């Protein structure tokens, strides 16, 4: 009988070495990421616990959680939170709805499909600032805007859209830009469907309506969730559109813009502004955690 050697120790050492061989190439990127994101974040955390004004320059005082406590009492902050919620929820849901409808259309074969798809994706490729400017000056504007030209030629009175509906003006630009994103996600879901399942449903006597609501839509669920979560993470931090289209003001100042106003935008209250931004970060982390869970479910679901 040959002696049975216990290899556990050796195996463990080999695994450890293999693990480092894989991690090592990632280290530079990791260090860079920590330096440019985590260090400022920790500094912000610290600032949020201080009272710190630059103009006029005052020494930085540690005041504990007072900034956070004051948040709740601040009417402007509460309004900014509501604006953020409204803006994010309505833009995400509307773009998801429109994106789904477009995806269903694009899922069928028709002449010029590729061309139409490219056209539909284009809004997503435009820089946010440019999109905001184009809409503000060429669509909403009361003198030069297309919408007002249309109203005018139909005999209606001109409307200063941005002044009258600041929130919805921004939301419509957001929807215009984000519909293609949602469309692509849903389209991926539609095209990933097992064709034979649809055929089975047809043989089983399902009408087109029943097929969509009982077979397709439930299968799209993870994709819709993914769209909602990714969209929310991006749209909760919208800043450029607000700055370009309304420049803040009632009904259109969301939390990121409020943070800006309170700090480098003229308020110079870095302590308070840091506290606001921490709140946004926490909200984003909560949403992102859900988002990643959905994403991993989706990837697991694709394994046969």
């Amino acid at each position, binding site marked *: 009988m040959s002696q049975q050697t216990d290899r556990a120790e050796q195996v463990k050492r080999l695994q450890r070495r293999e693990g480092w061989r894989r991690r090592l190439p990632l280290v530079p990127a990791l260090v860079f990421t920590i330096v440019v994101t985590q260090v400022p974040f920790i500094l912000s955390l610290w600032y949020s616990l201080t009272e710190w004004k630059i103009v006029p320059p005052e020494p930085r005082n540690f005041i504990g959680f007072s900034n956070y406590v004051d948040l709740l009492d601040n009417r402007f902050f509460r309004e900014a939170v509501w604006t953020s919620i409204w803006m994010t929820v309505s833009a995400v849901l509307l773009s998801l709805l429109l994106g789904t409808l477009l995806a269903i259309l694009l899922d069928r074969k028709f002449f010029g499909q590729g061309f139409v798809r490219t056209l539909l994706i284009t809004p997503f490729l435009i820089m946010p600032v440019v999109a905001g400017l184009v809409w503000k000056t060429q669509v909403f504007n009361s003198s030069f805007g297309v919408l007002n030209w249309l109203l005018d030629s139909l005999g209606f009175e001109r409307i200063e859209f941005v002044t009258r509906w600041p929130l919805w003006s921004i939301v419509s630009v957001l929807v215009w830009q984000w519909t293609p994103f949602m469309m692509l996600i849903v389209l991926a879901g539609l095209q990933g469907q*097992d064709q*034979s*399942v649809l*055929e*089975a*449903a*047809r*043989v*089983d*006597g*399902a*009408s087109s309506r*029943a097929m969509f609501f*009982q*077979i397709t839509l*439930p*299968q799209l*669920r993870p994709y819709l969730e993914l769209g909602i979560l990714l969209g929310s993470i991006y749209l909760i931090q919208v800043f450029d559109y607000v700055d370009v289209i309304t420049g803040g003001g009632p009904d259109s100042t969301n939390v990121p813009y409020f943070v800006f106003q309170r700090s480098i935008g003229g308020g110079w209250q870095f302590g308070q502004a840091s506290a606001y931004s921490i709140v946004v970060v926490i909200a984003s982390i909560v949403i992102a955690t859900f988002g990643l869970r959905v994403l991993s479910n989706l990837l697991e679901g694709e394994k046969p």
Partner: protein
Amino acid sequence: MAEVRYENASRIYPGTDIPAVESLDLDIPDGELLVLVGPSGSGKSTALRMLAGLEFVDKGSVYIDNEDVTLTPPQDRDIAMVFQNYALYPNMTVQANMGFALKQQGVPKAERAERVREAARILDLEPYLDRKPKNLSGGQRQRVAMGRAIVRRPQVFLMDEPLSNLDAKLRVQTRTELADLQARLGVTTVYVTHDQVEAMTMGHRVAVLKDGILQQVDRPRTLYSHPVNLFVAGFIGSPAMNLVEVLSEGTNGLRLGSLSLPLDEQTAHDLAARDPGAITVGVRPEHLRLGSEGIAGQVTVVEELGSESYVHITVEHQGGPLLLVVRAEGETMTQRGDNVQVSCRGPVHVFAPNGERIGA
């Protein structure tokens, strides 16, 4: 319960000139299990999908229960189909999967549940009714797909390679269960497979297709003993028939080297009427014998299956090596490298150069 009929039915896919199925004429009586068999690309699945309504019929017609359904959409044909990958609805439980078709028909919930339970009992699926397909094994999924079909009590069952995703042992077991179930329910069934063993063991009749053209429809035994052409002869039977090209000498019969091939009267007569020339003869492995007479050769491989063994023998024929497969006893003493002699006890199948069978 219904009769199914294909009348001159063709399917030509857009962008091609060659029909995937060409002028298919097939009559399937009520209650029969007909197997469509052929190699890949033979059009067997297309033919089935034409019956399901999932493929257009470009020429000809398809009838179910004497009703022309050529242009009827699948949902109105009263057929149930089992797909190769089962195509279960992933978001629904087993129960909902099986009850889906009934729900579409507007069958009341109580009756639906009762019929699903009944089918689940037949298929041993009762413990799994509340599971989702992804939590089932391959065999269970296959049975759910079957259950989805039988719950409907349709006029016709269509099965598109329903066993090909199962492992070998389960496949053999399910094969017999399926044939038994079909016989008990008595529902006309069209069954597609590429596996000729499945076709032979399950089919009441078997239709052999090649390149979209129907070659032969017959009972399995007839298909085996009287293949109408070279393709069917080579396709049906495992291991395959030995097919050898020889020179016909007219009235003098046929010889394979030193081996004289026994011919029945009709074949000998038909052969004598033809001009001498190259023809193909076919002999099944069980009709060849190892012994002390016949053509000499050397054993290259012995496949031992326990109950029998197949001996591969290389003989010299027309100046080149020729491989013959001979069936021998399970306990054969033959080994690789042995020099043996092969004789033939018939029957011998004879095919003309165009592949058609000569003689009876």
